[in-house]
């Protein structure tokens, strides 16, 4: 009787999970495996692939391309490093903006808190491309930012804000702020305010309280926010496309170009694999650390 009920339970579980699992297998794991396979195949001369093992795709990213056709060139490595740099800058900027704001929001009344959370999610209601074009209007030479700066007399010549790393970072910070804010806010909200009083009561200055109590207790939120921002920033190609122009090429743009314009699918697949690999390393470290912390509690 008991074993029957367990098997029925298991059957139920399978029935509930099957559709999702099947969907993910066919439309997520499948394409990933195709990409992985492609990254080890030789590109055909006119697009398409030659079906034999070819490791120079990976060599090319690191600079050593197939010596027969190409010379040593670190351009892809530079693009990769620049992408990482821009993603890190985005993470740092969003963190600096969201951390203090999260503390401020957590002091508001319940009604105002709900309003703030709603405002944070409001941008999701409009298309990202439309919102980024709004930034073009702000940042271009005759845009609002330059008009304002000229009107206040701070500058005489318009600044070249568009098509620069700065513009890309501004755009990405703007897009990814909610991803940083929400996890940080949830950890700040969970922080027991009595702990701060307890720390102060035991002789800690506000700075020491921050260092020894507030920061360690909000760290999980900070880490989660950083990961949530870093991963999509690294592979982002829409923001550099619109705000970076041809000058600021990120790895996301490279992948897009390899697939759509250069028609070099194996190389595009290789670049994608490298990003996926980097993210998997970061996520594994994160999961390992949080699992260890869970075990300790």
């Amino acid at each position: 009787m008991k074993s029957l009920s367990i098997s029925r339970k298991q059957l139920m579980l399978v029935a509930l999970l099957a559709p999702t699992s099947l969907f993910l297998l066919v439309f997520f794991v499948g394409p990933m495996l195709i990409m992985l396979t492609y990254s080890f195949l030789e590109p055909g001369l006119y697009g398409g692939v030659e079906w034999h093992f070819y490791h120079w795709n990976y060599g090319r990213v690191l600079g050593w391309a197939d010596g027969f056709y190409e010379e040593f060139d670190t351009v892809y490595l530079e693009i990769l490093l620049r992408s990482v740099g821009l993603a890190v800058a985005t993470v740092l900027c969003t963190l600096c903006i969201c951390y203090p704001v999260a503390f401020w929001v957590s002091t508001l009344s319940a009604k105002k808190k709900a309003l703030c959370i709603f405002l944070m999610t409001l941008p999701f209601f409009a298309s990202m491309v439309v919102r980024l074009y709004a930034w073009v209007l702000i940042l271009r030479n005759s845009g609002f930012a330059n008009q304002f700066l000229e009107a206040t007399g701070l500058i005489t010549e318009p600044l070249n804000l568009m098509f620069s790393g700065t513009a890309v970072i501004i755009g990405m910070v703007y897009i990814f702020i909610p991803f940083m804010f929400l996890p940080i806010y949830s950890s700040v909200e969970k922080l027991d305010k009595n702990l701060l009083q307890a720390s102060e009561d035991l002789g800690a200055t506000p700075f020491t309280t921050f260092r020894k109590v507030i920061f360690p207790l909000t760290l999980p939120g900070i880490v989660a926010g950083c990961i949530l921002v870093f991963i999509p920033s690294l592979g982002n190609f829409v923001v550099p496309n619109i705000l970076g122009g041809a000058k600021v090429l990120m790895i996301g743009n490279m992948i897009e170009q390899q697939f759509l314009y250069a028609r070099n699918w194996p190389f595009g697949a290789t670049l994608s694999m490298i990003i996926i690999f980097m993210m998997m390393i970061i996520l594994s470290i994160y999961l390992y650390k949080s699992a260890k912390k869970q075990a300790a509690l």
Partner: protein
Amino acid sequence: MSGSTPSLEYIKIRHAHRQFITPEGGIINALDDISLPIAQSEFITLLGPSGCGKTTLLKIVAGFEELDSGDILLDGQSIIQQPAHKRPVNTVFQSYALFPHMTVGDNVGYGLDIAKVNKVERNQRVATALDMVGLGGIEQRLPSQLSGGQQQRVALARAIINRPKLLLLDEPLSALDKNLRLQMQLELKNLQTELGICFIFVTHDQEEALTMSDRIVVLNGGRIEQVGTPDEVYHSPQTEFVATFIGESNILSGTVIEKSETGIDVDCDGVTIHSLDTTPELGEEVKLLLRPEHLSLTPNGQEGAQAQLTMTLNQTVFIGSDYQLHGALENGLAFSALTRKTNTPLIKDNKVTLYYQISALHTIPSKKKPTKGRI
């Protein structure tokens, strides 16, 4: 009660005022002219219902809230200008407020780490403090691995390790179950005697206050109703509020209709009560307190005069050692008694006779002069 040795006025709260503005725009007097001297090694309890200002007063002493006006002196020095982290005062919080990411040892040693006490002495003192609260050797555990009672003790160890001049306890026992609470009450009292420092204990639980305190400060609506030893507060309440808030009570209000050298007769809506108190004048309104436990179903007085009252029973509650009888007097006044069971049948709507010693009656002073905070 009055003493002139300086240690009896180790802490002086002088004319403390604090107002809060409600969201609706009203003004609440959280503290309304509180003045209170506290002795150097005294266990003093602030007792009152929620909203009486007891927690506000504690937070002001700790430094988490500010006074609108008034002053607090500790050992002759005003402390109200000092930030909380500089005051030689430590607090045990109601929610314990243990740092969840630190081990018990790091929690207890937190104050010492901040004071940069060297490692050897620090570990020694952490071990001693944990021993004092009966939790030796659990330094490596995390607060989440402890029971509520253990967390309470860790919070206590953490608060006493800095050797404060004054320990504040904000309803620290309210989250514990009853047996543990009773045990902790005794331990707290012992700890206080051992440390010889002043404990200011906040509670709304009158039993807790009576058990532990050297003195009880009864607060209501931001004012001090009465300051006194547990015995004084229980047996000679100065206001009706104190009489009803502490312990069970029957209040008989009436007018003095007869006065002689030996006492007064008070008419309480048709029931005449004789009291030995001769201070009230003829025709004065008085309130007489009669505790339920002073009533019994049998006349068993060896000393002093006895009197009796007739009550119509409404409800009988068995509480283990005794019976609680609830009912009404002949004049309709709700009345209760706490007594041993006798042969008298305790049936609803039956009339029972309750006996008491006349000397057990206590006259509550009329409300003309509210007691300010003074000893």
